[in-house]
């Protein structure tokens, strides 16, 4: 019996006992190859790291926590400076928190405060995208476009305007280039702004590569985000890019949006930031927001208890230094290419693999019943759940999800191994994945 209200009330998952690199061991001694960085693109430098351990112990011996209304701390200051040092010019201030959902709450509240400070209190609406996911807290869920995750809480959520995601596999027509498709998808933002009235819109929030859990790593196509940036500029709408899952080096760029050549007004990061050693999140803001607050009320209207937690910041700083010391951003690009090549070779012609997509080591595999028509499997079969169970039996941690297409139908698998995964480990992931997928499909027959 467990005293925890587990995710499924009739099942207690295996207990994790120990982990090292990409290998996780449960309390029964079973070993799993971790193809998804602790389960959700978190453990970006693998499990265990001496440098992070030393940094945590050093900080523990000094001080772990003091509230931000009394003190700042050396690790918090150093980490903030480190993050803005790696960010494009303009993104110059950081607000810390304990995870991605909190980072999104912070971003939304900052966007709102910005407009009030600027003397445009009428700007309070947020535009977001269908099939997006920005977090589990009520504000983040309100701007999330994934129906099943919101449905239960609908009465508690605020209303956000939802536009189409950038989902080339299903939305690009065969007579338009990726770029033309991207421009068409981005035009929905302009339509939405005009529909609502630009003077009422505070911000647009999107993920450069959509969260693995909902849309399976659908990346912005060439030209999409620069068009989005131009539209936001035209109407003075703030651009919030959510890099909680795709950021921190995972796509082969420190920030995924660097590949798109845009600079957002606000960025959320988490997951890989603390690398799973500590709960950690951050919201990076552009000068124009920090300056507006400084020139206005001069006070951040928002705060959390654990904002800038000294021990968590020390750990995250050690993780980010390890990423750079070990050259893991470049490694993610190279390993991402290698993993894609292996997946294409192994599953590219699989009759139930419709699309292999993503960037760097953030890869989605969309499963279809029929490649020709792109028809999904019957949602009632819960293929994604069967694949997950089958992978766990084969000693492989992956992150399959359902509802890929519209929140109801569609199945995909997310792969997001640690940025320092070795080539032989990637090959083993692909081998175990192929076996797990075929075994899962066998049970549907």
């Amino acid at each position: 019996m467990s005293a925890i209200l587990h995710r499924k009330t009739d099942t207690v998952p295996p207990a994790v006992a120990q982990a090292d690199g990409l290998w996780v061991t449960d309390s029964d001694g079973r070993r799993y190859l971790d193809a998804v960085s602790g389960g959700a693109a978190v453990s970006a430098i693998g499990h265990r790291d001496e440098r992070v351990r030393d940094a945590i112990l050093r900080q523990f011996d000094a001080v772990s926590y003091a509230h931000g209304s009394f003190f700042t701390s050396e690790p918090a200051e150093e980490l903030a400076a480190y993050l803005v040092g790696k960010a494009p010019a303009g993104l110059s201030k950081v607000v810390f928190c304990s995870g991605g959902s909190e980072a999104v709450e912070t971003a939304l509240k900052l966007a709102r405060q910005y407009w009030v400070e600027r003397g445009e209190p009428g700007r309070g609406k947020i535009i977001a995208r269908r099939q997006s996911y920005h977090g589990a807290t009520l504000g983040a869920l309100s701007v999330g476009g994934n129906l099943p995750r919101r449905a239960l809480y609908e009465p508690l959520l605020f209303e956000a305007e939802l536009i189409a995601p950038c989902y080339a596999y299903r939305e690009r027509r065969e007579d338009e280039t990726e770029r033309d498709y991207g421009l068409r998808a981005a035009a929905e933002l302009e339509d939405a702004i005009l529909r609502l009235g630009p003077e009422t819109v505070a911000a647009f929030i999107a993920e450069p590569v959509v969260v693995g859990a909902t849309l399976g790593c659908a990346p912005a196509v060439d030209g999409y985000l620069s068009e989005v940036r131009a539209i936001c500029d035209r109407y003075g709408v703030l651009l919030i890019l959510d890099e909680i899952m795709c950021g921190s080096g995972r796509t082969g760029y420190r920030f995924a949006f660097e590949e798109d050549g845009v600079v957002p007004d606000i960025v959320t990061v988490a997951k890989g930031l603390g690398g799973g050693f500590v709960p950690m999140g951050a919201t990076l803001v552009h000068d124009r927001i920090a300056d507006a607050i400084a020139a206005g009320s001069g006070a951040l209207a928002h705060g959390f208890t654990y904002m800038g937690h000294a021990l968590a910041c020390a750990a995250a700083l050690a993780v980010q230094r390890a990423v750079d010391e070990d050259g893991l951003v470049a490694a993610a690009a190279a390993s991402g290419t290698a993993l894609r090549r292996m997946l294409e070779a192994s599953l590219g012609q699989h009759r139930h693999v419709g699309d292999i997509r993503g960037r760097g080591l953030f890869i989605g595999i969309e499963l279809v019943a029929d490649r020709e028509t792109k028809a999904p499997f019957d949602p009632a079969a819960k293929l994604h759940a069967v694949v997950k169970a089958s992978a766990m039996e084969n000693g492989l941690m992956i992150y399959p999800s359902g509802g890929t297409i519209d929140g109801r139908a569609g199945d995909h698998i997310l792969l997001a191994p640690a940025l320092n995964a070795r080539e032989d480990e990637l090959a083993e992931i692909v081998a175990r994945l192929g076996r797990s997928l075929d075994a899962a499909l066998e049970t549907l027959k």
Partner: protein
Amino acid sequence: MKAAGRLDDLREAYVRNHPESCARHERAQAWMPGGNTRSVLHFDPFPLVIASGRADMLTDVDGYEYIDCAGEFSAGLYGHSDPVIVAALHEVLDNGLVLSGPNTAESELAELLCRRFPSLERLRFCNSGTEANLFALLTAIDATGRKRVLVFEDAYHGGVLTFAGGGSPMNVPFDFVTASFNDIESARASVKRHEDDLAAILVEPLLGAAGNIPAEAAFLAMLREEATRCGAVLIFDEVKTSRLGRAGLQGHYGIVPDMTTLGKNISARACPLAHSAARGP
């Protein structure tokens, strides 16, 4: 020297082990120049003569079995004995030959293909990829009232449309000019130089015979833009590449030519079938 000796040994063994192929090749030489009619199938000292095929296996006349990795030079998508295809062919044969009228299947096939490829509004069938390319070029020449055709170095569009090594004496005597594949600036300059006389631009979106070199998307986009600007007909030869996506490579790139030629894969080489297709004016 050691390698050359080894090669001689292998050649001798090959001749020794394939007496029936050798004999048939000698007999064929009496009636066919070089003993063959499809040069690509020939190699020295003589090619294997194939007796039969089943699934992905071939058997030669000397009784040796091979795994077929040539796949009829990209056309044999379904192997040598797919039961669905074999049954359909039997059904056709049982219905009688040379019927001298439109048949019951052609418009249905035309519809399936038109629905699949964005450039296909209507199409005509013919017998091979070579023939499809010839019809497409002649149509473009007639429609534009111009004569010149831009093709690309090392391209292969059929036995009479071969542009490797400066062309072939067997090429049809059209007014060809060549440019270099994937070289955006020089190809654009070629179009500009000839634009008043240019009837067509004929390009494979993946240069097959030159070693499967994919076109850069920007290169194809430039050809699309230039063809539209100067009124030349942009023809995609998707004889080989139609197998690379449900709408061929035009669907992959999202770039729509004015005409498309198909062959090989659409019939999976069960019988000759090809066509040129075009968008309306």
